[in-house]
């Protein structure tokens, strides 16, 4: 593959004969996807070409948004990674609904207290737990509570939770940020410091 400057990439891809540049970019994206997604298992290798194809369409359709602040190939690879990871997450979580996630959580182990705790420690933990539950109930909207549980407590990807809640990743991050800020302020107002809570739960 011949080396190109950012300007050459743009000129070649926008020019009358973009085929060579498209083929070079495609090869580079496939190699990058295989290297970058190695930890996601063997299935990715077979899909790298499909991801690269889909990314090429996005890249060529968005050349105007490339501002030249990085190498063109890094910018293009970023888009290819986003395409690939969005799809890989979608597949991995395909069979999990939020309802299932919440139901499993409610049915699951409710986290009995450590039996090594003294009655005083247990009482203190229960007080803090009760207080935090009240804050979550009073401060957060239903949607914020759902997002907090699915993303922050159960570790589901933001993009997948967003899809199920009829929003997008960006908006859901903001919703979670607002939720975290509300809880932080409420804890501060109540004089409940994170360090103290962690110490009570022996994680300080």
């Amino acid at each position, binding site marked *: 593959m011949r080396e190109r400057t950012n300007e050459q990439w743009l000129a070649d891809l926008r020019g009358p004969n973009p085929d060579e540049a498209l083929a070079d970019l495609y090869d580079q994206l496939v190699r*990058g996807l295989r290297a970058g997604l*190695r930890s996601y298992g063997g299935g990715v290798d077979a899909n790298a070409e499909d991801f690269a194809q889909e990314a090429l369409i996005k890249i060529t359709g968005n050349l105007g948004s490339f501002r030249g602040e990085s190498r063109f190939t890094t910018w293009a690879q*970023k888009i290819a990674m986003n395409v690939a*990871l969005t799809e890989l997450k979608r597949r991995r979580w395909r069979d999990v609904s939020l309802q299932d996630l919440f139901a499993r959580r409610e049915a699951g182990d*409710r986290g*009995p207290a450590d039996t090594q705790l003294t009655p005083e420690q247990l009482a203190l933990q229960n007080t803090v737990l009760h207080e935090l539950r009240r804050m979550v109930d009073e401060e957060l909207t239903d949607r914020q509570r759902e997002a907090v549980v699915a993303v*922050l407590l159960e570790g589901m990807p933001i993009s997948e939770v967003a899809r199920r809640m009829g929003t997008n990743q*960006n908006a859901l991050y903001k919703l979670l940020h607002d939720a975290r800020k509300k809880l932080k302020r409420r804890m501060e107002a109540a004089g409940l410091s994170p360090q103290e809570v962690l110490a009570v739960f022996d994680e300080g």
Partner: protein
Amino acid sequence: MLKRDDVVKLVRVVAETRDIEISCDECFERLDIFTEMELSGVKASAAMPLVGDHLDKCADCRSEFEALLSASRST
């Protein structure tokens, strides 16, 4: 309903919350620049703290950064 096992997780993310955080779109916008900075040996999160902070908090964006970093190292 918050469970006993959730407390540590929740309180940690609340403690790390800042008034100003960038969104996933804003992080993505700068991810190529951040990655190249990291590759060049500069501590990118010191130069672009809001991106670094977002990557600490958002597993989705962090996985894209890590994959892009590996890809850039190999090509």
